């Protein structure tokens, strides 16, 4: 209690967490986090009222991270592309609009302690009062430092059952797009950008007003290959994104003098294009004639990587992209996903990663 009085006196707050030291944080997608402390206690993670509110918004640096090509960034910082997540100032708690929430799982990933979980069709925030020794009147710096020391030891547990829960949400995510406010293509680009940033990959969304750079999303590690992405979260049968990404590839290589070996093209789709559709053929035509291998990323893949806590900055995500890119070897898509997800590979994976007939 001494520390609280200090803070109320307006003196320099204590920057270090002085309570029991957290030893291990376990997080799962559909359960709130569990924090083991030194000693016998284990508590359920609850909202720590973070001052920087990572669940609700990205930092300014995150939305304008360098992606390897000159592309104006979209300044929108909300992590929820659907506008379902708000912040209640009096209580310092995130609010979830269950009508708008699609359960895409980006905010689940963003909560540093695991106080948000994927419920049925929506996300839930654990707002129960913290245990007594996590006093509600701690300074925000205290929260930040306790959170950071938790993050350092966090462990994500993954299970295929949880992956299936997320897979079940994908149709909801896709169906919510046309109903979203504003341009649905912009919202779709936000879903993709937010999932990528959430998974630790520097990514930018293009700015809608920019007529000369109509790029939906670009991502890439500094010094690594940059991906330019067109997003169409339909059934993958639309040829528009293939055409646009071809044009954008030409624009970026020619006007910005980006070498072709530093640039790759990708299309994020809702589902894999079915084998008998024209889109399926056009990807193959482009590779055959122009020598350009356009990666196809189902949005489910990105959301899985994000919600399941993969840190793309530390994986060889882009180098392994061939495993999840298009081709006659589309069976390799499944293998690539299984390789990344391991035991957490969802049972429903075939529906999302294998082109139907």
């Amino acid at each position: 209690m001494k520390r609280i009085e200090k803070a109320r006196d307006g003196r320099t707050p204590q920057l270090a967490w002085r309570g029991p030291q957290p030893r291990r944080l376990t997080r799962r997608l559909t359960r709130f986090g569990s924090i083991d402390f030194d000693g016998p206690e284990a508590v359920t993670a609850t909202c720590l009222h973070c001052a920087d509110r990572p669940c609700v918004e990205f930092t300014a640096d995150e939305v304008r991270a360098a992606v390897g090509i000159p592309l104006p960034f979209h300044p929108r910082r909300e992590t929820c592309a659907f506008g379902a997540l708000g912040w209640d100032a009096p209580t310092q708690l995130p609010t979830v609009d269950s009508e708008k929430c699609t359960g895409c799982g980006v905010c689940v990933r963003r909560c540093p302690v695991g106080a948000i979980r994927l419920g049925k069709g929506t996300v839930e925030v654990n707002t129960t009062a913290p245990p007594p020794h996590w006093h509600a009147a701690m300074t925000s710096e205290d929260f930040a430092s306790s959170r950071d020391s938790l993050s350092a030891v966090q462990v994500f547990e993954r299970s295929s059952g949880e992956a299936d829960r997320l897979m079940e949400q994908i149709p909801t995510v896709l169906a919510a797009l046309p109903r979203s406010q504003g341009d649905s293509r912009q919202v779709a680009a936000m879903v993709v950008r937010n999932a990528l940033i959430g998974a630790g990959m520097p990514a930018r969304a293009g700015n809608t007003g920019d007529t000369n750079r109509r790029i939906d999303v670009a991502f890439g590690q500094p010094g690594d290959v940059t991906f330019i992405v067109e997003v169409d979260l339909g059934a993958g049968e639309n040829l528009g994104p293939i055409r646009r990404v071809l044009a954008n590839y030409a624009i970026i290589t020619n006007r910005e003098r980006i070498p072709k070996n530093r640039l790759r093209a990708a299309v994020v789709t809702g589902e894999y294009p079915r084998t008998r559709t024209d889109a399926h053929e056009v990807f193959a035509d482009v590779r055959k004639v122009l020598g350009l291998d356009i990666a196809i990323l189902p949005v489910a893949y990105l959301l899985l990587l994000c919600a399941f806590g993969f840190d793309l900055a530390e994986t060889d995500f882009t180098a392994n992209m061939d495993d999840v890119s298009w081709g006659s070897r589309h069976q390799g898509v499944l293998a690539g996903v299984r390789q990344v997800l391991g035991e957490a590979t969802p049972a429903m994976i075939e529906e999302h990663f294998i082109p139907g007939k």
Partner: protein
Amino acid sequence: MKRVHPKGEATAPRVPALPFVDFMVERGPWGVSTFVGADGHEVASTCLNCRGQYCRQFGPEVGVHGQLAVCPTNAFALTAAHDGVSLDVDRCFGCGLCVMRCPYGSLILGKNGYPELASPADSRFRPATEVELTTFSENLQIRVAPGAGAPEKSLAGLLENVAGTLGPQFYPLVVNLLRTLGLAATARPQGDVNNRADALIYDPTDSIPLEIKSPGETAEVDVKSVQQALENKVIMLSRRKEQYPTRRETTTLSVALKYPPPRSDVWQLIDDIWAAYGVNVGLLTIGDLYKMVWRKQVARQSPNLSRLREFRGAYT
């Protein structure tokens, strides 16, 4: 609903008696040509009863299968007696193609914008025998009047007629203008999913896919149609090379009513596509296409089609 516009009484075919051997072209598609006799007297040109082989139907010279009617909407025919035009006025939109196709200048666009015979009957005409007819048309000396090579003013009216058309009218118009130039153009058969181009020009080495934007859809060539033109070329090279041989640098065409404004991003995108993929995207307006057809049909100048095969950006 069919309405017939006969000019004069319906009688047996009347053609000029020989020896009208000279043919003076003074026409726009809506001006009257004149047959000049060896003895100096002149008559307005009239239908020479070639049985619609130019104004109504393409012959085997177009070299492709498919719809061979000249009229994009199938609205035009001659009356059985070849003394007038049988026209479905609900479908005719005044493209003027039948008028320009007539080698004898016998059709005009009337004041109401519909094609009609310039001069159906003349007291000095009598019905010609088959032999006379053949001899006559073979012996015609075509002279081109001064001023016939300046089509801009006359074509402005045609372009106005075309300005509101949609795909079902506009696509066959483009195809048939190209055929009139002597190109083996064909529209995409309905339901052909292997073929994304709206139309194709066959050539033994340089086939050209066409992306057509109908004026009722969008007036100018836009970024999207340039993207589609690139895709058309990719698909032709990938899937259709045996039926439609082509090279990568052969033009892939995008046809529309107008060129984009000078500051449009389209122009730079075309250069980007050339730099990145080595594909030439060419833009052609319906006005330029009309001019080429005009020069061939009216001014009797052989069209220079080699430029069409390899150009980038605007045709003019």
